Structures are given as structure tokens and as C-alpha cells.
């Protein structure tokens, strides 16, 4: 496990932002769960099976996180909240150094 962390934020639908220390190399979902971020259910524990770890990425985060693969895209077809072009499953995104200071948006529901 990597020891270094970056600061990332999660913006709730009401606009409130929670900033956390996310370990580089972990999934964004794991970092969120470990830091009590509300609104990320992650029922399948990161197996890309449940689509309850849905988040929205800003343009710059999309550039950093890269593209969803086919499997993730298929799961994204059925998110409980609106699917947008910026939708991703947070369990499929790895925390990297360039994410420092960036903010993810949490959707209004997961199931």
C-alpha cells in the first residue's frame, strides 16, 4: 500500500464539500468509504457489479482518470441517478497524484 496521499473533495448535491486524504493507488470508492463520505454505497465492494458507487467527474478529472472500459460503461447504463457523460463508477478509478485538490460530485441517489 502506498503511504502518500492527495487531498480530494466530494461535493454533495446540496453543495457541501468534504475534503479527504486519499491514498494514492487506492480506488476513489475505497478512499470515500474509508473517510465516511455520504452518498457512496458501494454495495458490491468494488467488483463493478452494483453501480452504487456512481460519481460525476469535472472535465479536468475526466482527463486525469481516463476512459471507462466497456464493462464499466455497461454498468453505468443503469445508475439510479441520471447518467451523464461525466458519470463514472468510483471503484474503477485509481487515486493518482494529479487528483490533488480536485472535487468529485456525488449524485442524489445510488439505489
Amino acid at each position, binding site marked *: 500500500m502506498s503511504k502518500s496521499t492527495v487531498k480530494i473533495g466530494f461535493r454533495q448535491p446540496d453543495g457541501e464539500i468534504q475534503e479527504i486524504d486519499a491514498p494514492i493507488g487506492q480506488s476513489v470508492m475505497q478512499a470515500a*468509504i*474509508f473517510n465516511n463520505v455520504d452518498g457512496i454505497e458501494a454495495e*458490491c*465492494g468494488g*467488483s*463493478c*457489479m452494483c*453501480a452504487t458507487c456512481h460519481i460525476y467527474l469535472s472535465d479536468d478529472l475526466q482527463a486525469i482518470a481516463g476512459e471507462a472500459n466497456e464493462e464499466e460503461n455497461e454498468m453505468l447504463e*443503469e445508475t439510479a441517478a441520471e447518467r451523464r457523460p461525466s458519470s463514472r463508477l468510483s471503484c474503477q478509478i485509481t487515486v493518482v497524484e494529479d487528483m490533488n485538490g480536485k472535487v468529485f460530485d456525488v449524485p442524489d441517489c445510488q439505489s
Partner: protein
Amino acid sequence: MSRGVVIVGASHAGVQVAASLKDLGYDQPITLIHGELPTPYQRPPLSKAFLAGQTDADGLVLRSPSYYGDKAITLLSGVRVTAISPEDKTLSLETLPGAPAAQNAPTTLSYDHLVLATGADARTLPVPGGDLPGVLKLRDMAEANALKTALAAAESLAIAGAGFIGLEVAATARKLGKTVTVIEAQDRVLARLFPPIMSDFITRRHQEAGTRFRFNATIDQVIEMENGGKQISLSGGDQITADLVVVGIGAEVNDTLGRAAGLKCGNGILVDETCLTSNPDISAAGDCAAWKLLGSSRYSRTESVQNAVDQAKIIAARLTGTEIPVQVAPWFWSDQLDIKLQMVGDALEFDDIVIRGSMEEAKFSLLYYQGDALVRVDSVNRAIDHIAARKLVTNRTSVPKDATADIGVKLKNFV
């Protein structure tokens, strides 16, 4: 003062009851009793990523250790409930050795409402030698740790049972380069759950990965050899040896507390469609609870995370007077080798199966029909089918068979 809700068992079902109660604004005390140490964790990775060394125990926590305190949920870790006395609505507790002493765990506890989420235990191999060291089960973190350590030192393993746990352990062990033999009493893998066409597909993949199978064979006895390895006698007289034996022959429901408290039980604690037991002050959820699935008149248990979580949400909704979520068709997943398996629906009663996609390329779904109604869908590397199938199967939707066989037509169109 209100005694609030007390939850026995802090795994997928128990933790979700507490979390959902909080989410729905429940403002009375919540006590969550975790019969293990230290923090409630996820079970599915125990046979997959955790065993393979891809994630450690910290990566398995269901919620962060600080979650419970932050949400004002009293988490008693390392505390087991030994008895329920339904008349005066109290529990007797015992603290495990090694539990944090500072916790000052009480020996009795009162409840307004009790939730049993006591789950199941792995079945022990019922033969001479079935309890030797080096004959291991896999259900909880302690067992997973023991298995992981033993696996690192072993070169070969014999697995009793070609169910999900056995096959997932086989896949993980092959990935680690171990010699693997799976011993199965039936003539194929997952025989209770799948038709032969799916069993055969899964078997072939495992064989290609190097796993050997002994079908129609049961273990009569296990003997410890001088070098610490195990000699395994099979029905029919064959002997095989392995450094380690892993037992994956099913789970035994943990309904002892409920039974002793006089709750109606069958194979598990019987609950209604809102997960209420025969006692109006006690609910049950998850692997320990038996209810009637949609369209069925029989009580049955579903051993899956989805079932545990959905039932937990139903209980929390009832207790807070919120709209109760409707029951959906049960779904389950398993990861083995390059097979990402997703299943929805229970009945193995069907008139017809439609194959959608390519079995050769390991990208297909099997659609099970009763008449024109879709009653179950098993998908391999076809998440897109699975997600649509959850709704189609819940509603037992009529879908033309030639349309579903055509991979160009999205199942979603029929939702």
C-alpha cells in the same frame, strides 16, 4: 428512556440496517453487536482479492472505523449475544477474549426492537479427520487469514465442493500457481444452481486454467501424513494427497438464538415480506432469514450480499415509517478466472433456455423462460444484459425469444 434498536450481527445485513436507519432519520439509540474483531468487513473478497493478496484487511472494511462513532451508532465489537429473552426484551451478552477492554461491554442489554442478522457459518467436513489442522473452511476473516497463511506455504490443495466458494478458491489458488484438485459429489460443478450447459462451460474454463476435477466423488476420510500433508480417501477407494484441504460444502444457517427465543423457524428464521419474524418486536435479515420470494409460496433463504442489503433496507423503512422498498428478484455475482458471472432470478424451473452471445468467447447470457416469461438470466461478461435483466426478471416480463437471441437488440428495450 428509549432503548432503541439493537442489531445482532454486524456484517452486510446488520451494518446496513444501522446505516439505513440513520439515513432515514431514526433518532433513537442504535446498538450494533459485532461478534467478531475488529471492524465489520465485506465477505465476498475473502475468496477472491483478499486471498490472492490484492487487497488487505483495511481494504475490506464495510464502513470506516470512525463511521459508527460519527453516526452515533454504538458498535460493540467482540461481543456475542448468548440468549434473548423476548418477554422482557433483553439480551445476554458475553465479551470475547481480546475484545477492547476499555469498552466496558455490558452483560445485558434491553431493546425496543431487535434485529437478528446472525448470518450463517461454513459447514464442517463431516468425516473422520474433517477437523484436522490443515483442513480449512472459509466464512469469516479469521478463517480467511488462516487460509491465506496456509496457502502461501502449500504447493497443492484439495478442495471439497465445486460450489462458488470452492471454485473461487480454486481460481485464486491457480493464479498463485498451486496444484488444485476439486472433489465434487455431483457429476458437475454448481449442479444445484445451473443447468449442465453452464456447469460444463465453467468446468472447461477451470480445466483450461489447470484445475483438476474429481466428480461423483466424496471424501471418506482425511489423515495427517508425517510431513504434515494430508492423505484424502475418496469414495470408490482412490487416495489423493495435498498440502491443504479447503472445505466449501455450503453454509449452515445461524438461527440458534432465534430458535431458542421461540421464533418460528424452518431452514432459517421465518419472516414476512417486511422481514418481521413471528414476534412483533423482532426482525431478521440476510443469510439467517427465510422469506417467500416473489411468486413463490415456499420459504427460502438467499445467501447473497444484495439480499442482505435489500432486506436491511426494508427493515429500516418499516421501523421509520418510510415507504418500504419493493422486493426485487434476487441477484448474485461471482468472479472466477476471466469469468464475471452475474445471475438474477431463482427458479431453476424453466421450459426453455435462449443463448445470447458467444460461449466460445466467454461473453454471453443464458435466458430462462417459463412460457413467454423471462424468469432468470445468467450472464458471463455481459453486465449490460444483467442490469436490464434485473428488472425483466423481477417483473417476469414476456419477451420474444428470437429478439433476445439477437445480440444486436438491447435487453433494455424490453424493460
